[in-house]
């Protein structure tokens, strides 16, 4: 995998090599502060693992699946952070674009890698339109992009329901009795995606024996995730990447330097939305089934929480943090209900606990971000 620690924005501290003594202490403290969150989270996971007596095999199995499922979604958050837009809660719209594409290829009955590829292609124009719309909203709501993205997701969810519950089969011709509700219009609550299930994961088929039974290694998916990581790193070296970084540091200065800030913000949003659409397709091809009306709803929250548990912040996140965060967050996600059951005799407590952790992590990150900003300003 690509060098995981190349920062997406300039590091907050100078490299300690040439720094004087005091600064080196400060740098050390800053590194410690930054790694406090992931360390704390790792300890939490460890306690859960011990409490629930989980075997390493079980964890490896779960993590192979969940990591390949979620990594691209988490990576899609990086570019808007670079551009100073904060956490893009609007990736929910990207997820919707991915689902629209997945539904279309299932309707057309295009199976396998061809179906998955076609879905990825179809998702692009839809995601671009959604991204431009979101970017336009972000430009009008400057300074409150995050809350606007959140509400835009809710709003788009309404339109999405309108499309798939009421327009399909009435205004839009659509006649597949397996997909449409018995009444003749509106999509069923779940769509079977067995046509494209494991299309990517099993493209380069690999099974490894683990604890007596074979486990699927999603080689092609990992390859593509690596490609996404490299794109994110390469993107920093492009002119656009540098412009976005300048905007992220100070939009005002960037604008005076002749950078077209508004246009670039829209581009950053579009890129993020397209990646999120692909990320959702990755997620769906692994799941093999889709909750038509709810698969996308929590995409944003879980991806953002995953990114933040690695110690990333609203204004600074690296590729390595995205990968680490995905791993840590989903470990907790698996462990939490099991640990809840072992400790309190109730899996429900663990389930509530992991949702609480997701929200709490986002809250703390938001508070710290606003706190620092207020102190500086």
């Amino acid at each position, binding site marked *: 995998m690509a060098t995981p620690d190349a920062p997406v924005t300039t590091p907050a501290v100078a490299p300690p090599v040439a720094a004087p003594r005091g600064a080196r202490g400060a740098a050390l403290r800053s590194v410690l502060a930054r790694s406090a969150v992931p360390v704390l989270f790792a300890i939490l996971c460890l306690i859960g693992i011990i409490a629930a007596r989980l075997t390493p095999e079980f964890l490896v199995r779960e993590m192979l699946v969940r990591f390949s499922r979620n990594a691209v979604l988490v990576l899609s958050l990086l570019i808007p952070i670079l551009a100073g837009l904060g956490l893009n809660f609007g990736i929910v719209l990207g997820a919707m674009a991915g689902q629209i594409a997945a539904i279309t290829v299932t309707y057309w009955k295009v199976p396998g890698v061809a179906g998955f590829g076609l879905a990825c292609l179809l998702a692009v124009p839809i995601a671009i339109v959604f991204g431009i719309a979101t970017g336009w*909203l972000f430009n*009008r*709501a*400057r*300074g*409150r992009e*995050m*809350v*606007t993205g*959140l*509400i*835009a997701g*809710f*709003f788009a*969810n*309404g*339109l999405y*329901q*309108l499309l798939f*519950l*009421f327009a399909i089969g009435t205004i839009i011709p659509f006649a597949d009795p397996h997909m449409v509700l018995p*009444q003749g219009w*509106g999509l069923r609550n779940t769509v079977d995606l067995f046509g494209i299930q494991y299309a990517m994961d099993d493209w380069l088929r690999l099974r490894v024996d683990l604890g007596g039974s074979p486990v699927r290694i999603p080689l092609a998916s990992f390859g593509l995730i690596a490609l996404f990581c490299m794109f994110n790193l390469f993107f920093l070296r492009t002119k656009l990447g540098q412009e976005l970084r300048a905007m992220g540091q100070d939009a005002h200065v960037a604008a005076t330097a002749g950078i077209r800030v508004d246009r670039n913000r829209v581009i950053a949003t579009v890129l993020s939305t397209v990646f999120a659409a692909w990320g959702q397709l990755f997620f769906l091809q692994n799941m093999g089934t889709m909750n038509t009306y709810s698969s996308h709803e929590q995409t944003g929250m879980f991806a953002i929480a995953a990114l933040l548990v690695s110690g990333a912040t609203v204004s600074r996140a690296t590729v390595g943090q995205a990968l680490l965060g995905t791993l840590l967050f989903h470990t907790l996600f698996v462990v939490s209900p099991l640990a809840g059951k072992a400790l*309190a005799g*109730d899996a*429900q*407590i663990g389930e*509530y*606990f992991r*949702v*609480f952790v*997701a*929200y*709490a992590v*986002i*809250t703390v990150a*938001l*508070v710290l*971000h*606003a*706190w620092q*900003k*207020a102190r500086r*300003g």
Partner: protein
Amino acid sequence: MADVVAPADRTPPLVMLQESIREIGIPRLLIAVFLVALFGIAVATKMDIASLVGDSLLRAARNGILVLALLPAIQGGVGLNFGLPIGVICGLVGCVITLNAAVTGWTGLGLSVALAIALAIPAGLAYGWLLNRTRGQEMMVGTYLGFAVVSGMSIFWIAAPFTNPTLVWAIAGRGLRTTLTVSGVYDKLLDRLWSFNVLGVSIPTGTLLIFALACAVVGLFFRTRAGITIAAARSNPRFARAAGISDERTRVQATMFSTVLAAVGIVVFAQSYGFLQLYTAPLLMAFPAVACLLIGGASVTRATLTHVVIGTLLFQSILTVALPVTSQVVQGDISETARLIIQNGMILYALTRRSDR
């Protein structure tokens, strides 16, 4: 156009129309037209208009204080208080303690309100303190703090030592049920108080009166010295500081007031609705309330009592009327979809208005 030769001091009617449309806002006009259309269909299909109007009124009264709770936060310069669930949770805890102790009737309602206020004051203080440290991101911090509190409290509802067998799961013997009924405790106590019928429309006098009372309290408060101070600090923090007013303090006061109202609001809501909804139910409660206020004509930085009353009536009427009316035209529940679009479209519109920044 005929108006070309109009006298200079008279604005041409077309421009005037444009001005007033801009004043009201296109989304608000669309929503009003939508409501009129819904009632039109209801009349045309000979539905029971009296019960529709009655239900609308009841729901407006029920939700009124929750919408009103947003007003102090805007007055204090904190913006739209998406952290409303924090207050709601305080109110719910108050209700659950009352139910667990099996205190019924007016004493029960009074005890619930008292406990709700007692819990909401420290919660509001802490929330306000946090918002002071996260200036510029109040809405986002409020939203996610609310989410975190609601999901954290889910663990509390399961684990807390409530023992009353009418509240906990029958088989496990512990953990509160997701929905608790208040029937026999203070179910519709206010709704029925001095209730009467006009043209077949039943008027929930008590709940309406409590809403009116709360409005009056808020209105009067912002005429007192403390209230004026809060508003002054919001409209010009620097000038206020020169006059010896710290806007840090006034913002905390405004947030606390908002949280307390939310706590009282949910008790009144539960009394009228007949149920306490625990666990994830309060999660998204702030959004419809915010939409009500915005539909009434408020903006992110400015809101009045009129906005609260008109907005609550308009939006709650739509929510009440949409389901029975649309189900006559379209099969399936399109009203929930319409609610999502109207509610969040309205919030988006308010967030992206340029004049507000």
